[in-house]
């Protein structure tokens, strides 16, 4: 999702999701935390994973 997206674009997506779940006003309150999460998602996506890499949960 976020391979080529900016923090602002990811934040907009997270905020839309939050607004669906909690309403616009609540999503606005969550914005500072969602901003941090958007930064984390963008940072995580800076590293390109091999397409055949599967997760291992335990």
């Amino acid at each position, binding site marked *: *999702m*976020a391979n080529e997206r900016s923090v602002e674009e990811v934040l907009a*997506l*997270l*905020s839309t*999701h*939050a607004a669906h*779940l*909690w309403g616009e006003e609540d999503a606005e309150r*969550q914005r500072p*935390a*969602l901003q*941090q*999460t958007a*930064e*984390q*998602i963008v*940072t*995580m*996506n*800076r*590293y390109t*994973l*091999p397409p055949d*890499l*599967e*997760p*291992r*949960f*335990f």
Partner: protein
Amino acid sequence: MPALHTLGAATVAALVRTREISPVEVTEACLKRIEALEPMLKAWATLDAEGAMAAAQRCEQALQRGEAAGLLCGVPIGLKDIFYTAGLRTAAGSRVYADFVPPYDATSVLRLQQAGAIRLGKTITTEFATADPSPTHNPWNPAHTPGGSSSGSAAAVAARMLPVALGSQTGGSTLRPAAYNGIVGLKPTYGRISRYGVIPVSWCLDHVGILVRSVEDAALVLQVLAGYDAHDPGSLTEPVGNYLMAVQQADHPPRIGVLREFFAETADAETRQHTEAVVTQLSRASAAVREVALPPSFGSVLAAHRVIMHVEVAAFHDKMFLAQRELYGPKLRESIESGYAIPGVEYLRAQRLRRLFQEEVEQMFRDVDVLLTPATPAPAPRDLSTTGDARFQSPWTYAGVPAIAIPSGRSQDGMPLGVQLIAPARQETRLLQAARWCEATLNVTLTPPV
């Protein structure tokens, strides 16, 4: 003989076994120490003095009958208040769990008791073992955070209220408070100690941690706790090592890989200089020291760790949170809300990156036995609104590899400093052996002014 409340676990167990001291006397001494310091430190959520004295008396009677003594016979222990204790309140530092009394004991609690340990009670945790600070004070200076989330366990062990307490680590919640309080904190490989009966933060990242005052005691407690548990889906099936023998045979200097880059850039000047002085001291004592580079994915690891944690904490709290949001603290609430918003694709990316990082970490040990970093970027902050900085622990928790923090000195303002050692997955024997050698070489024991 030193005051009984100051003795370590291995010493207590040995003296109880040879009947030189009584488990009742040791338990009484610890309870008196707790009574004296608890108003200042606030390390205990629930103290079970009556239950502890009854267990100590049963232990003494068993010894009098000539029954075999367990490895922790007569050793007082504390349990972070997220470990299920049958019949004893387990509130997890939360208003949501305020009246929760578990119907069974966590596997780790059972194993400690089967080994003869005396359960004194439940130590204070931050709310659900996350980031909102607890009321516990640091025994070195009450204006500084004790760290978290295993705040009560670390402060109690440092203040000589008892020799052993269990904690947990999802980011840095065992090693960080250990370092901030000047004691030893051990987090073994993911799955080495059962998580069954421990209230989760994140199923994939949670580890049971051990807080003690020496590497020998860490080995002793791990020996009791380690082993497969069918109740825990992440439990390791590999055989358990002989940790006690490992620390007794720690006479060979290890090959140490020093991590600088991110760790040197993030640490404050005093911590950086202190760590370099420690490395020099270890090298002069014949440890083979070399610098090891961080792997390519390292720059994304801290972010991926947070993504997993947010999503899994939201998944666990889900219905409880939806029903009682107002009962949650601000930092935990933010984390859960972020977890709801994160797309599934990103959560899986974080899990895929985790597997890659685990493989990269394995490669870091090609030429060294253990890795070394400062335990924390700085000593315990003079700030009670935070539990400190977990960034030096989180990568190794994310990878699931074993790590230990040992005390290594004090800062200019008198707070403890420590170093962290990391070993490959399932190599606790190697980690403990190296840590014991470093502990003996550095010869630092820290006792807070309480």
